[in-house]
């Protein structure tokens, strides 16, 4: 029952401690994680965004440069000059030297006929009329035209840039084919990680450059449709098991959209590592908290049990003392009440004895009987006197005193109290008392209580038929008086032996013993500056040893 109380207490304290330690820990970890996650994700997104804008700028720059080059070329040379293919070839070589992105260049009149052409496909393209091509009308309308990527007559991905030149009253077109690999190179520089990708789509969501993974030119890209993007757009989309982070940005010079795809797991891997690390740390903290709580609670509980025991001990000593005081008063009262009539009885008997000395009574034939009778009265009055004086001696012990004590005499007195009880139970009391035992300053009545308690226990332990041995001697250094009280009882098992001085420990039946006798005896002996130890062997008996300082 007591254990149950402590166990409950243990759980309460431990759980409270753990709970109150874990809540801040978890809060801390969560706050840290979310802040870090937020900051890091922002950083990663920012990086992708910057990259997208950067690539967009590069693409625009490239296209604007090409347009500018062609416009410059067209406006600094006359149609007549450029229609001369040798001249055009020279000019083309100059332009090509600055940028190797041109495939060919051609001059087309307003009827769609090729006036001049320089490039690798001379035989195929020289005779072609472009009047029915969709870009031909577009360039006539808007002056500058950039086509989508197409395969054209040559089945090679390319796009063209055409500029319209008005010279006097006629218009002509300077058209250049540009290798779309160049676009691809610029775009591909945008992807970040191993699994990242980047590509261009036109307004119909057809690929203008070949992505690294999946999808072919002029087909729909593997990702979602970003063709309608205006400005910059970022989106995280999870398709299947793989999350993907998309950044789409519109190119300014052409209705193309640059799409950059990243696997967020890759740039965010440090974040994931942080997640695991935090988890590990909190697990570590958790186990430390649990171990710490369990350990400290155990310590606290041990201390508590100890102080509870001590308190119980001192409470019981106090209770015992007040009980003994009350008992002492009762004993004194009873003894005094008996003592007075007893005094009268013995005086009257004495008077009768005196009278028997007189002459006339001496002649009585029953003189002998009278004398015998009086002697018996005196003898038994003396017995009663011994009892009352013993009771009064017991009553007197209440205030602690220090006086010269003959330990042997105290023992004898105790034996006197219990002799009858022992005789009824056929228990022999053997005395091996050292005759030259010195006196010591101590409290005889308290010593008597201790001895009586041990002797009582010994008698109870034996039950019937046995021997109690009392032994006194001086120890080797002549510093201590040793009293040993042994019985031939059943003994105390090794497990119980360390507990017998604990308060409330008893081997007696419920209601028979309070379990306080030995604990009180133990504290009395310690208070008197001595030590009390016990030795026992099951089946052989128990020996209590009390050592008192010689003072």
């Amino acid at each position: 029952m007591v254990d149950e109380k402590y166990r409950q207490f243990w759980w309460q304290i431990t759980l409270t401690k753990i709970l109150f330690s874990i809540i801040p820990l978890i809060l801390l970890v969560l706050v840290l994680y979310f802040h870090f996650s937020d900051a890091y994700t922002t950083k990663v997104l920012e990086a992708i965004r910057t990259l997208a804008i950067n690539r967009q700028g590069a693409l625009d720059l490239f296209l604007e440069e090409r347009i500018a080059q062609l416009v410059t070329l067209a406006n600094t040379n006359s149609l007549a000059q450029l229609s001369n293919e040798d001249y055009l070839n020279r000019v083309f070589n100059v332009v090509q030297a600055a940028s190797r992105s041109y495939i060919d260049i051609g001059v087309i009149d307003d009827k769609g006929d090729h006036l001049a052409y320089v490039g690798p496909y001379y035989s195929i393209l020289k005779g072609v009329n472009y009047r029915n091509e969709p870009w031909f009308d577009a360039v006539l309308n808007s002056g500058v035209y950039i086509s989508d990527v197409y395969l054209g007559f040559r089945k090679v991905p390319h796009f063209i840039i055409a500029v319209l030149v008005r010279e006097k009253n006629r218009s002509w077109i300077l058209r250049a084919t540009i290798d779309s690999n160049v676009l691809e190179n610029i775009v591909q520089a945008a992807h970040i990680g191993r699994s990242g990708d980047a590509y261009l789509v036109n307004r119909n969501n057809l690929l203008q450059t070949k992505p690294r993974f999946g999808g072919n030119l002029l087909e729909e890209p593997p990702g979602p449709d970003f063709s309608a993007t205006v400005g910059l757009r970022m989106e995280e989309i999870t398709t299947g098991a793989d999350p993907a982070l998309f950044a789409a940005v519109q190119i300014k010079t052409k209705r193309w959209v640059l799409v950059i795809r990243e696997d967020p797991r890759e740039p965010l891997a440090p974040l994931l590592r942080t997640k695991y690390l935090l988890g590990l740390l909190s697990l570590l903290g958790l186990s430390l908290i649990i171990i710490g709580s369990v350990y400290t609670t155990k310590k606290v509980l041990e201390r508590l049990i100890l102080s509870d025991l001590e308190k119980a001990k001192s409470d019981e000593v106090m209770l015992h003392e007040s009980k003994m005081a009350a008992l002492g008063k009762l004993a004194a009262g009873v003894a005094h009440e008996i003592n007075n009539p007893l005094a009268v009885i013995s005086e009257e008997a004495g008077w009768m004895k005196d009278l028997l000395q007189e002459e006339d009574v001496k002649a009585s034939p029953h003189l002998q009987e009278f004398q015998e009778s009086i002697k018996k009265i005196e003898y038994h009055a003396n017995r009663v006197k011994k009892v009352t004086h013993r009771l009064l001696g017991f009553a007197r012990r209440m205030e602690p005193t220090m006086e010269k004590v003959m330990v042997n005499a105290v023992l004898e007195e105790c034996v006197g109290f219990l002799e009858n009880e022992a005789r009824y139970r056929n228990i022999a009391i053997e005395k091996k008392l050292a005759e030259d035992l010195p006196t010591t300053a101590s409290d005889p009545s308290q010593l008597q209580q201790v001895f009586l308690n041990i002797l009582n226990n010994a008698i109870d332990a034996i039950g019937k038929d046995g021997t109690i041995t009392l032994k006194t001697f001086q120890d080797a250094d002549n510093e201590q008086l040793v009293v040993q009280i042994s019985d031939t009882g059943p003994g105390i098992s090794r497990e119980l032996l360390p507990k017998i001085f604990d308060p409330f420990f008893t081997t007696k039946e419920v209601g028979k013993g309070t379990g306080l006798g030995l604990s009180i005896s133990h504290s009395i002996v310690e208070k008197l500056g001595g030590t009390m130890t016990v030795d026992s062997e099951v089946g052989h008996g128990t020996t209590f040893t009390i050592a008192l300082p010689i003072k």
Partner: protein
Amino acid sequence: METFRILIVDDEDDFREAIMKRLRARKVEVAGANSGLQALEMLDNQDFDVVVLDVKMPGMDGIETLRAIKQKKPLVEVIMLTGHASVESGIQGMQLGAFDYVMKPVALDDLMDKLRQAYERRMLQLEYGRQNL
């Protein structure tokens, strides 16, 4: 040996009378008082050598009576008669000037010895007092 005069003070009549009878049989001049007050009264009117004084009496108890006696007649010897086996009240009595204490029930021979000793001391003190006069 000259007879000496004893006053027995005890509230227990039977006890007092038995003692008195026995002492008289031993040729001691003895009177009895059943309370401290009566004892003091008797001391005013008569001379006693030794007072045997019970410690525990109703009304004025033995210790109080002892104080009063010692105030009145410092040279009267007092033997305390105690029912307690208490050394304390005996010792307390002796600190207040009692000659000795005996415990009840008392063996008459012991009491006689103590009475004799007390008487001798009184005689010595009276002698000393006379010499110094």
